């Protein structure tokens, strides 16, 4: 087990390195204009551009530019090309916002997905199964920014039930304000996932419900409720937990760009969306690495947990 963990962690570091090199290359090779050109402004002389190139090291070979950039990422000195703010500080500012969104939404979609999946599996084949399935899939079929904009305008602005976007710090505005600001984003983001989770859980439950050990449990005279929760659900949840780990990693790393943008949460994802519009390479690079880190981390954690549960996986 120890060797397995070490191997996975080494693999994680290698993948992160590859991601950083690739991201750096993508944004330096793509024909998106010279950063020095853009920083100097419209009416700049070649001398000014050359000075900026020298100051920022744009005329150095790519590999040394990569090395300096990565050094700045780790020392926290990375600075934006567009407005000279510290990128790492900006990410730190967005962190609690993105985490608030991700954690709340992930818990919500896990709970709702499990509940609906179990319900549809028990009612499989009946009208209520079809109805709930279509509704759950409708949630999966909506563009998140569309649902978010409608919810924010009609429930927030028109009816005044919720604040119209924005984020409230727990420390400044209190716990209740924070929750009030987060309810709509949580629900909207969770809506996207509930359908997928309930469908996967439904088929897992239907898969195990006829297994021998379930029949044994019933034959022992256990209540149907106990059989469903302790025998069927417990086994059916394993693939769901894997799935949840990966989705959670993506949302933690700023993957919920659209939800953050439409509710103006000013999280890491929104920071990315704003930077990419200005082709501001340092924040784009840093947030991509940030996102990749959480994806790889959760992937690795899921693998390790899996290996701990099932020794056969360690060998492959």
């Amino acid at each position, binding site marked *: 087990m120890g060797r397995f963990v070490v191997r996975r962690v080494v693999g994680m570091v290698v993948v992160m390195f590859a991601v950083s090199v690739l991201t750096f290359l993508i944004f330096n090779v*793509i024909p998106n204009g010279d950063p020095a050109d853009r920083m100097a402004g419209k009416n700049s002389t070649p001398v000014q551009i050359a000075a900026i190139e020298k100051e920022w090291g744009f005329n150095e070979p790519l590999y040394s530019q990569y090395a300096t950039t990565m050094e700045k990422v780790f020392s926290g000195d990375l600075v934006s090309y567009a407005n000279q703010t510290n990128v790492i500080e900006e990410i730190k500012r967005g962190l609690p916002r993105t985490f608030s969104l991700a954690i709340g939404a992930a818990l919500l979609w896990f709970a709702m997905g499990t509940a609906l999946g179990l319900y549809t599996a028990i009612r499989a084949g009946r009208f209520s199964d079809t109805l709930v399935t279509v509704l759950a899939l409708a949630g999966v*079929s909506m563009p998140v920014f569309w649902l978010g*904009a409608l919810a924010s305008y009609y429930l927030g602005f028109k009816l005044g039930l919720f604040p119209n976007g924005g984020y409230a710090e727990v420390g400044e505005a209190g716990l209740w304000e924070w929750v009030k600001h987060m309810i709509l984003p949580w629900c909207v983001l969770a809506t996207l996932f509930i359908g997928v989770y309930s469908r996967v859980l439904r088929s897992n439950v239907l898969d195990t419900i006829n297994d021998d050990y379930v029949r044994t449990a019933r034959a022992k005279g256990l209540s149907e409720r106990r059989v469903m929760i302790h025998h069927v659900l417990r086994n059916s949840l394993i693939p769901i937990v894997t799935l949840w780990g990966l989705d959670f990693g993506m949302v933690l790393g700023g993957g919920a760009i659209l939800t953050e943008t439409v509710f103006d949460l000013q999280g890491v994802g929104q920071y990315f969306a704003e930077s*990419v519009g200005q082709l501001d390479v340092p924040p784009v690079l840093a947030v991509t690495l940030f996102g990749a880190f959480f994806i790889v981390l959760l992937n690795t954690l899921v693998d390790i947990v899996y290996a701990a549960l099932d020794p056969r996986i360690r060998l492959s």
Partner: protein
Amino acid sequence: MSIADSSVQPDLSPVLSAGGQAADASAPGLSPWELAVRRLKRNKAALIFGALFFVLVALALAAPLWAQVADTTPARNHLSDTIVVDGKPEQVVTFDGVPISPTWGKKFFLGADSNGRDVAVRLLYGARNSLFIGITAALITTFIAVALGMLAGYFRGWTDAFISRGLDIAWAFPPTLLGVALGVSFALGGLKVGPLEISGDSLWIPTLIIGAIGVVYLARPIRGQVLSLREKEFVEAARAQGASPLRIMFGELLPNVASTILVFFPLLVANAILTEAALSFLGAGVQPPAPSWGTMLSDGVVLLSTAPHLTIVPGLMLVLTVLSLNVFGDGVRDALDPRAKVRLERP
């Protein structure tokens, strides 16, 4: 994914053996495919939504007809025009910039947008673009993913190591962030690869990006399936007869992964349409003035308070299309894979 705040699915190395013969033992003499069709026919919800999708495609194809009825084009603006509604003259766009709401008549059936363009006509032409991107991107994803999955699964060894490590790295990229970043850069600079040159406002840029993002989610399951298929007796028999690797891949393996591809395809199209909308909303997808559901939505959302029809109309159209694909795809999966070994994925 979805791109767009979407769900990733783990590789559970799903294995689908030609449509799950074990089930429906009550119907002897039917091939797995016939059994699947029989199961799909029993699923009324899937059939209704499948039919709905074809109606929507037909509407998109009929876009020029409606443009003739409405006597306009998707790009022409009627900012200073006045039309007669219920016997009263009304401005298409008022002096305050508020566009007309749906008239339910020939002209401006679904209202106008802030540039005085006919929303119904743009919606239908936008449907063409959104569906083109959705279907083409899904085809690109399928083509690359099947090629990679087959090569890795069949040859194993170095080929597999190379492709699988590549997929691991691609898997680590946050799909939304990557899509948006590539979309914005290519939209500004265009795309030049050798002799191939694509201008920044071409539909091919979002199509290629969305197609590429999806690859990793399909290539892994295909590879897993090929890995186990290649050990089966019929592949061994073909090899013993001296069949070339190419022939084994196309003649023996491809028909056996076909059901997996069929299960994934509607879901890939659905996802690609959603991704187009997400990218366009962030300015990284279809570039104006070309209509697509995504660009119409991103124009509409900012005018939600004055002209809600600009948000609601294209949104409903998009949700209906994607929902019909999802429900139909769900039914196809139930039919081909009653034991649910293949998991749907949302890139």
